């Protein structure tokens, strides 16, 4: 187990409310849409809409249970440029945009707590 080393604090990122991170900006809406809209077929037919909503809730519940099974476990994140890092999973936000992790093993040291953007991650694995 690598001993934690002090990590250089990188400069503060862009202000979340400035241009580009504005929730109403076209860039944010294009990159981080919160949910898929209902399909056109379902919009016209209430029976289909109900079925679609049921399917959505079942799938979402399974996904949330998956996330629950992952909490406090060692998770390996596979990111761009073949970067693989390991951390202990904490939580995810509702739109699966950010992951809160502890003991993040980075190439420059171990970060006690960190927030990982989901756009930087391609996939992550854990053992059940």
């Amino acid at each position, binding site marked *: 187990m690598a001993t934690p080393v002090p990590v250089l604090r990188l400069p503060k990122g862009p202000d979340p409310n400035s241009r580009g991170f504005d929730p109403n900006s076209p860039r944010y809406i294009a990159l981080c849409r919160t949910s*898929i809209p209902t399909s056109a077929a379902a919009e016209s037919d209430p029976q289909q809409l109900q079925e679609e909503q049921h399917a959505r809730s079942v799938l979402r519940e399974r996904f949330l249970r998956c996330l629950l099974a992952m909490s406090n476990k060692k998770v390996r994140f596979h990111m761009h440029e073949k970067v693989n890092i390991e951390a202990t999973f904490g939580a995810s936000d509702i739109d699966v945009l950010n992951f809160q992790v502890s003991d993040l093993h980075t190439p420059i040291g171990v970060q006690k707590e960190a927030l990982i953007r*989901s*756009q930087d991650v391609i996939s992550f694995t854990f*053992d059940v």
Partner: protein
Amino acid sequence: MQCGWLHSGPQLWLRCVHRQVRVTAGKQREEHRGWLLTVDPVSHSVALVSFGEDGASVRVVLGHAVEHVEVLQEPDPDTEERLRSLLPPPETGGPDPGERRRRRSGVRRWLQQNRVPVEEDGNELRVARVLTIRAPYRPDDCSSANQIILDRVQRLLRVQPDPVPDSDPVLETSPAPETAPDLDGPIPPGH
């Protein structure tokens, strides 16, 4: 089920659950094979499980990285059974009725001691008409649309002391604890 995976609806995804799929992800077009656990309708992330010698490992491919999904085969009965046991559905059963009644009144008394308005409604407890607690009345069995009340009630349930066997409401002399949280808000200092 090749192209347009991301644009097909949740109904298609639900039909493909438990089947073996191959997911191509990322710019490097890495391929991942596994049994489909679920597809998140919010982020389009695909959860796959693969079974090894020492157990199962789950891989979640984020929605923005999914390039292509192909369904390969249906699961055999053994695999289907293992998949079903991985993500157990919520427990609907519970302890026997007598035990359930005891737990329910224990939880109700604890909440009332803490000045929380609660009523029994059949097998459930209703708090302030906005939160429901199902059997077996643990913190995870609470459901409500109001996050603040949910959080407070869950915290209360977590610190509930173990019930004293055959405690009589008349003989209970313990007053409400000093640290009883108030649903209206924190007590300001100096009071």
